[in-house]
């Protein structure tokens, strides 16, 4: 059974409606970058080998194998570091508010209420790239009455659906509040 997310400061009747993440393509772009770096030694080592042998030196075969493994291990760490950054950065939309969980490095973690629904003045979404149009990801922009007026969440999967969820939650929240 999937366990529901509950933060320490949740109100008794507060529950999560949707967890918003960046689109998987954002992480995929990082994977492509790391994969390209993985192939660097395949080109660099033979070129380096030519210069070394021309200089009359000889490098044992174990050296190449060691540094290839070392390089792969560094990239393996980079891959998971990027994954952590991608996977841990979320917006949690509850029936009361929107919470931003921001992962900064390994141990810095910022959890803050961005705004309550009564502060939201307008929500808009836009898809501004070709790939974003095909894969259905884009930005959600929220305007508020608070001191910091605009919030932007970039590269969100299915932004129109998220917008709908926020709008519905806001309507329900304001409807309930007016009845109190």
């Amino acid at each position, binding site marked *: 059974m*999937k*366990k529901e*997310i*509950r933060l320490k400061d949740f109100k008794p009747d507060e529950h999560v409606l949707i967890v918003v993440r960046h689109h998987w393509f954002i992480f995929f772009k990082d994977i492509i970058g790391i994969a390209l770096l993985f192939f660097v030694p395949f080109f660099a080592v033979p070129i380096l080998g030519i210069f070394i042998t021309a200089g009359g030196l000889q490098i*044992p*075969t*174990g*050296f*190449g*194998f*060691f*540094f*290839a*493994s*070392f390089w*792969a*291990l*560094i990239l*393996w*760490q980079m891959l*998971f*570091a990027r*994954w*952590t950054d991608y*996977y*841990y950065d*979320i917006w949690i939309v509850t029936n009361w508010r929107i919470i931003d*969980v921001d992962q900064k490095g*390994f*141990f810095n973690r910022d959890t803050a209420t961005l705004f309550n629904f009564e502060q939201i003045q307008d929500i808009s979404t836009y898809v501004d790239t070709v790939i974003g149009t095909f894969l259905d990801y884009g930005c959600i922009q929220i305007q508020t009455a608070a001191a910091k007026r605009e919030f932007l969440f970039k590269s969100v999967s299915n932004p129109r659906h998220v917008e709908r969820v926020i709008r519905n939650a806001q309507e329900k929240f304001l409807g309930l509040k007016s009845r109190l």
Partner: protein
Amino acid sequence: MVPFDLAIVLWPFFWLALVAVFFYGFSLVYHWVRFGTMYPLVWIALPVYVIGTVILIGAMLTGIAAV
């Protein structure tokens, strides 16, 4: 003259890699224990990470042994 052991050059890199691995492994387990319910994919990522890391550390040791 005493022959120079080339493997001595490689050991600092090996320990550097090991420190990085322990640092990241610890941070991942830390988050997994603390926020596991929020991030269920950690259950899959952690063993994948550990298997890959063990293989690559083994490969580094093989490289040192082959020098």
